[in-house]
């Protein structure tokens, strides 16, 4: 599988590591259902999903990758944060 890094171009997945579904962290607050959903519960779709990948052996960017979990088709990737320099 290859991922289209917005900075480096298409690269072999051996340069990346997968973290899981791209979810928004509950801002602060005490433990509750929102935190449990963020940390544990998943839609885990058989189909298109948005997930976090780290290009650790490349540009060091965290990416949000749109990918199909059944066909493994990668529909796109974007930087997860704006990137401090922007």
């Amino acid at each position: 599988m290859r991922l289209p890094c917005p900075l480096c171009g298409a690269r072999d997945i051996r340069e990346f590591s997968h973290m899981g579904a791209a979810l928004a962290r509950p801002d602060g607050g005490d433990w509750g259902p929102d935190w449990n959903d963020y940390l544990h519960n998943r839609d885990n779709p058989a189909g298109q999903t948005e997930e976090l990948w780290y290009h650790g052996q490349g540009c060091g960017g965290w990416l949000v990758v749109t990918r199909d979990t059944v066909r493994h088709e990668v529909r796109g990737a974007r930087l997860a944060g704006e990137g401090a320099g922007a």
Partner: protein
Amino acid sequence: MRFSALRILKEGLTGNRGWQAHWADATPKDRYEVVIIGGGGHGLATAYYLAARHGITNVAVLEKGYLGGGNVGRNTTIVRANYGLPGNSEFYSHSLRLWEGLEQELNYNVMMSQRGVLNLCHSDGQRDAFARRGNAMRNQGDDAELLDREGVRRMVPFLDFESARFPIHGGLLQRRAGTARHDAVAWGFARGASARGVDLIQNCEVTGIDIADGRVTGVQTTRGAIRAGKVAMIVAGRSSQVAAMAGMRLPIESHVLQAFVTEGLKPCLDHVVTFGMGHFYISQSDKGGLVFGGDLDFYASYAARGNLPMAEHVMEAGLALMPMIGNAQLLRSWGGIMDMSPDGSPIIDRTHVEGLIVNCGWCYGGFKAVPGSGDVTAHLIATGTPHPVAARFRLDRFATGRGLMDEEGTGSQHNLH
């Protein structure tokens, strides 16, 4: 029909004309006491123990494809009880005891081979962690031995003891552990369940779960509606989709785990050996193929196939550990879909829907759990209360933080276990 050497002799002499179906293909009735979604190892075992231990035979097992077509037919066949944490410890111990004697219980040779599982350690720190685990196994009443480097060498002299990047310090050995013929386990339980009156229904996909006033009333399937008093979801690999039919969102992420087999070879490896530094495990099947595997591919997947980076890593680990296998030729690779849970341990529990039971999250420990999982799930279905050895497999442990079973200590990232 009872299987025996005598029967084989008789059939052989009469042209093998008398053999009968190992299980009957049933057509769905409109109502069952218990409907089990999923005709994999765990589902079939649950059906068998419901019938055999609790006398509940008005049971249907609904399988989307063919019986045993899930991970029970797609794994590296390793059976062990070498866990370190409360919950896993007592459960896998229970499961291993059920494995011992499964042939006699089922009158089916599942080829449970107690050839020993040897986990290698490569540092003092790993040795201490293994010692802790081994002592937990002994506390549980299971067998465990800590081998030093020479002890390992005596047992498996062909490992790389000279030039290894991560020298072998020793190992944790469980002699009662080993391997079993994976397909036969599914077939044996299917045959036992079928013989006791359980309906095994293949090519029957569940498309909906009927719930009324917070209670499960049945399921919708591609072969019509089936009403049921109790429904058990035992569908590792598709748990999230089936649970969603009951409005549930599970703490599960699906990942692919590859496995590999070489061409047949004369006996060269008599045990199961695992190599921690390489996330590698290997054994030799009775047919002669070296069967081995490694870590997840790490990305979420429902495709039962992997990619090259992990496949190559597994070959690297195999060569590094056991240089003699270099001239063995990889014959086939495949992938199975793992229910990865946030702590790497399973879930067997009631749900917010009365009468609906969930069995999931086996990560890649599912095969060795088959008899144990079937037994305790049957107990939960039949009695409504968790079996003592599975009381910790709670769905709410992640919300409460109580009784987490993170054997790897890698935390709540599903693909790190």
